[in-house]
């Protein structure tokens, strides 16, 4: 008890205080370094060509120009891109979560014959893959080139999802399942009525991971999709980086639009439109990611 009162009246040493000031300052500076580049891009999307060509901090536009956003909304197929991205994320996530449960449950049973073989079967491709070319040839052979299903079909069984879900189910209280069996339920009913409701936390985590993965995916679109209307958001951005949009802009300028801005402003506007929703939602969902990784990692 003497120790407790010592804590209450403990003197803060000078060096301790100095360190605290430094520490808070350091962390705050670090956060600024994280946020400033994003803000910079927001500002870039709203300024004129003239302002864009000067070196400076660009913390606030001298004059706000919305031309870049107008061009993005009118000229790019951003509406299609949003549709494609959202639909692939929703469908892909739903399938992945369903598969995680369908695989996690049987494989969580120690007494399932052949369980180890199945585990290895799902494990091996995480480390060995046929490679880019054979996969491409397969996709082509299946007629999935330029088909939006290619966003979902090759990847709807997610290895991480299986591992996390299986481990979670294994940690559930067995008595609930046992009483369901006594009541005469078959495994399918147990899965839907008992296991899945109890596994909501881990399934939510898997869903979030998968959703983000789909939202950020660009490689499959880049390689397999040809039509602009079937593209996803990331590729729209990427194309504006890879191929300088200045020729596009020249064409528009000839039509009396976009005279006041550069391709870079349009690019910035594209990125902001793409990540805007994510950044707005982020504060609300980020804690679920953290919980998920802690649950998965601390076990290991």
């Amino acid at each position, binding site marked *: 008890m003497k120790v407790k009162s010592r804590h209450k009246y403990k003197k803060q040493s000078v*060096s*301790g205080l100095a360190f*605290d000031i430094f*520490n808070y300052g*350091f*962390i*705050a500076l*670090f*956060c600024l370094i*994280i*946020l400033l*580049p994003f803000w*910079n*891009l927001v500002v870039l999307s709203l300024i004129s060509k003239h302002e*864009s060509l000067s070196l*400076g901090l*660009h913390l606030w536009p001298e004059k706000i120009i919305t031309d870049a956003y107008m061009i993005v909304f009118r000229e790019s197929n951003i509406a299609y891109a949003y549709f494609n991205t959202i639909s692939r994320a929703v469908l892909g996530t739903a399938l992945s979560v369903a*598969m995680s449960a369908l*695989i996690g*449950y049987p494989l969580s049973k120690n007494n399932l014959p052949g369980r180890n073989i*199945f*585990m290895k*079967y*799902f494990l091996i*491709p995480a*480390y060995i*893959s*046929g*490679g880019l*070319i*054979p*996969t491409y*040839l*397969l996709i082509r052979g299946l007629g999935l080139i330029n088909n939006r299903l290619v966003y979902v*079909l090759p990847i*709807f*069984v997610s290895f991480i999802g299986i591992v996390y879900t299986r481990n979670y189910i294994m940690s559930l209280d067995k008595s609930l399942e046992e009483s369901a069996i006594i009541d005469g339920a078959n*495994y*399918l009913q147990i*899965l839907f009525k008992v296991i899945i409701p109890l596994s909501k936390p881990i399934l939510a985590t898997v869903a979030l991971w998968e959703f983000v993965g789909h*939202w*950020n995916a*660009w*490689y499959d679109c880049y390689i397999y999709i040809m039509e602009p209307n079937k593209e996803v958001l*990331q590729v729209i*951005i990427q194309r504006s*980086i890879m191929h300088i949009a200045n020729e596009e802009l020249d064409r528009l300028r000839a039509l009396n639009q976009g005279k006041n801005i550069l391709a*870079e402003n349009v690019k*910035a506007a594209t*990125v902001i439109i793409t990540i805007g929703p*994510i950044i707005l939602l*982020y*504060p609300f969902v*980020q804690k679920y*990611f*953290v919980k998920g*990784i802690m649950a998965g*990692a*601390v076990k*290991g």
Partner: protein
Amino acid sequence: MKLLYIMLIIPVIQYAIFRYYPMYGAIIAFKDYKYSLGILASPWNNFAHFKTLFNDPYFLRILKNTLSISILRIVVGFPTPIILALFLNEIKNLKFKKITQSITYLPHFLSWVVISSIMMEILSPTRGIVNYIITLFGGETIQFLASKQYFVGVLIITALWKEVGWGSIIYLAAISGISYELYEASEIDGANRFQKAVHITIPSIYPIITLSIILSFSGLLNAGFEQIFNLYNPTVYEVADIIDTYVFRVGFFDNRYDFASAVGLFQSVVGLTFVLLTNYIARKHSNYTLW
């Protein structure tokens, strides 16, 4: 009981089609693939592609780049999340801690497509913040993304910017599990904060630290394709072209499917060896098991 197996049918088939079948297609690396003949009927080529690979003038370059970039990533990227975790651990104000942590994880969730757009603007020689600060100190503007000297540095630092926050979560979680009594006991012995960090905090998280080191080596051949692909350009191929980017260019744009397969196969085999080796060491060293 049969129901359990029925649950597994669809995933097993999906894996068979999309994961196992392409492995079989990897034999294309050992053949002279002719589109008209297909994979099976194309003639065997007596390892010709592997010989081409090892004799390719770029082979040593891509290998050197892959290894040096990934080793640099590990060496720099490994201690920094730990250091950040130690500093964050000293923050007493919970609200400040939570908010700043959330901010630091943010870049982790965005793709390299987005992050590279952001970085290109920051590093721009005509309007970027970084060059602005350089000129304030009297220097000349630097074309970071076109410079063989600075490009790899840019890769490492931007990768750090993206991942250090997220990487610190695990260490913070481990630190929060350290028994408070240890710290109390050290206070009685007169330890200051620095001494507590060095003699209690760090030693207590040795297990997770060593596990992380071992596991980070399993990605040795992975130098960050997504990042490099979105940031590089021909000017910096000499320092930035890695195995993955080379395979991608050669495979797709030169249509050398069979050669690209050989390179990909080489990479898979070496990569797999590393992964198995490091996971084996991890298992021996601690109780880590993935499966």
